[in-house]
């Protein structure tokens, strides 16, 4: 028959799956790749710190205090970034510091994401009084000065890794809630939700199987943003002495300790600060990249 439609297997070739499209876009997304390299390097430093660090990050050597870094006169390969005021190897402390940074950042983003997205989705889907209550909670949260509350809570509950992660998570769930709520409101008016409701699906089923997959990419992007903010706040708290407690090498503590010597050994504050700065840029690039390549509108 001359007018027969083209066989369907040809269609498959012409229409790549969403995953393939995402992969094709990621291959040409420079920002995403740079972000991924930065974040993966930090994660690898955190995971394999005992193998990567050239020296014990806690071992003091008062005879070798404030040794210069490799690029200054008198620097040696033994201490590439020099030593700090206690003679500890700066590079090793930096590598171990990645553990604190990544655990707090990732942990806070995941915890606050769970709390905030749950509230946002429930409010956005159920509407009415539940929604009004959740908007009120968000307003109350926004009205509280975050850094000061975090400082007070750390002084009450102590500066352990777990307490700081939880405190930061409880302080930064609001953006997840706002975004998840708005996204849910947009999705819930679509036909496939009505279809699921008509076919008798439960509210829990609809939230997890119909709504969540459709707003997940927006939640992941907020997650990257919150991870970056949590890392910055942890560093600031530790810098102020009300965060992770010394001698644990948090990057914020490294800056704070280097401050005593910054006028004649500026690299002691420049290196850990740059580490925070680069990691945060990397996380932001990764988040923006993920948004670009997973947006349904971006697929063509």
């Amino acid at each position, binding site marked *: 028959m001359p007018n027969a439609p083209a066989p369907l297997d040809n269609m498959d070739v012409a229409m790549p799956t969403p995953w393939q499209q995402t992969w094709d876009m990621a291959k040409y997304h420079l920002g995403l790749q740079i972000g991924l390299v930065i974040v993966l390097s930090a994660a690898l430093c955190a995971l394999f710190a005992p193998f990567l660090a050239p020296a014990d990050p806690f071992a003091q050597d008062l005879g070798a205090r404030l040794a210069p870094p490799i690029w200054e006169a008198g620097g040696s390969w033994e201490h590439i970034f020099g030593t700090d005021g206690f003679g500890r190897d700066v590079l090793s402390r930096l590598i171990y510091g990645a553990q604190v940074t990544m655990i707090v950042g990732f942990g806070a983003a995941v915890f606050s994401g769970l709390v905030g997205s749950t509230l946002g989705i429930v409010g956005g889907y159920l509407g009415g009084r539940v929604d009004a209550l959740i908007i*009120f909670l968000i*307003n*109350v949260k*926004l*009205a*509280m*000065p*975050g*850094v*000061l*509350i975090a*400082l*007070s*809570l750390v*002084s*009450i509950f102590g500066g352990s890794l777990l307490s700081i992660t939880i405190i930061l998570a409880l302080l930064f769930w609001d953006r997840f809630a706002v975004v998840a709520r708005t996204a849910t409101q947009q999705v819930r008016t679509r036909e496939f939700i009505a279809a699921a409701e008509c076919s008798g699906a439960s509210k829990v089923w609809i939230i997890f199987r119909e709504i969540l997959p459709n707003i997940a990419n927006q939640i992941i992007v907020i997650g990257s943003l919150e991870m*970056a903010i949590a890392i*910055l706040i942890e*560093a*600031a708290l530790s*810098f*102020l*002495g*009300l965060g992770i407690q010394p001698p644990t090498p948090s990057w*914020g503590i490294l*800056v704070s300790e280097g*401050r005593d010597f*910054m*006028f004649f050994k*500026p690299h002691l*504050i*420049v290196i850990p*600060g740059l580490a*925070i*700065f680069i990691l*945060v*840029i990397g996380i*932001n690039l990764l988040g923006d990249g993920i948004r670009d390549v997973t947006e349904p509108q971006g697929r063509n």
Partner: protein
Amino acid sequence: MWSYFLKRLGIAVLVIIAVSIISFVLLRLSGDLARDLAGEDATPAQVEQIEKLYGLDKPLYVQYFDWAFKALKGDLGRSLYSNEPVFNLILSRLGVTALLAVLGLGVAVVVAVPLGVFAAVYRNSWIDRCSLGLAVFGSAIPNFWFALILIYFFSVKLRWLPITGSESWAHFVLPTITLSTMVMPQIMRLTRGGMIEALDSEYVKMAWAKGLGPGVVFFKHALRNAVLPVVALAAVSLGFLLGGSVIVEAVFSLNGIGSLAYESIRRADFPIVQSILFMLSFSYVLLTLLADLINARLDPRIRLH
């Protein structure tokens, strides 16, 4: 307009009450306060005496109402450390922080709004890229570290500006730059986004079609609509800067609310911490209320909805 205002005011009052309860409860969780105050060698009788003196033996809700009624009359209690009235302590430190926050916001708006407008008008040009780079830079840099780097360059290397203190205007230059970078990225992005949306709209096409000049189209038609969310953000940012100046004040040794809060947290001087938390929340709620009203004034769609 009036029903809109009253509804907003009602929510604002509820938020303030909720915040005051939360900050009250949070700070009373901090272990056995009476024992801390009495010192390590205190006998049980002495601890009991202190509990009576500060009313700590009463149930938590009674303590809250005691505090709230006194606070309404302007009595925020006394510092546990210096025994000075908290109200006077805060008042004596308020000027520095308020000045810093206003300066920081002012610089941020003056830089970010024109940048956002130009970035939107000349989309994908070098100025758009520069402003985007500035936004990425501003939102990724740790502010306490940025402050130290500024001190190193401008105070130590170049010797243009003093390192710490608050005696002259020169002492406020670096803190203002640090604070303004904290809010500049959002203001820039929001202005740019709003301007792009406005420039693509029908009424701007209409304005061009009428033969109006670019100045009138950009500033009278587009910017007026694009600036609406920026006004709200600016108000919110001011509240954020009042609370966020703790880091900047600590680095530059400025005697403002932030450093008072920081010292008081370290000394467990909770009447001060609680009052500052409450005062900051209060000003934040007031500022957002103000922003809502300005928006309603600028945009008839909001107040008539």
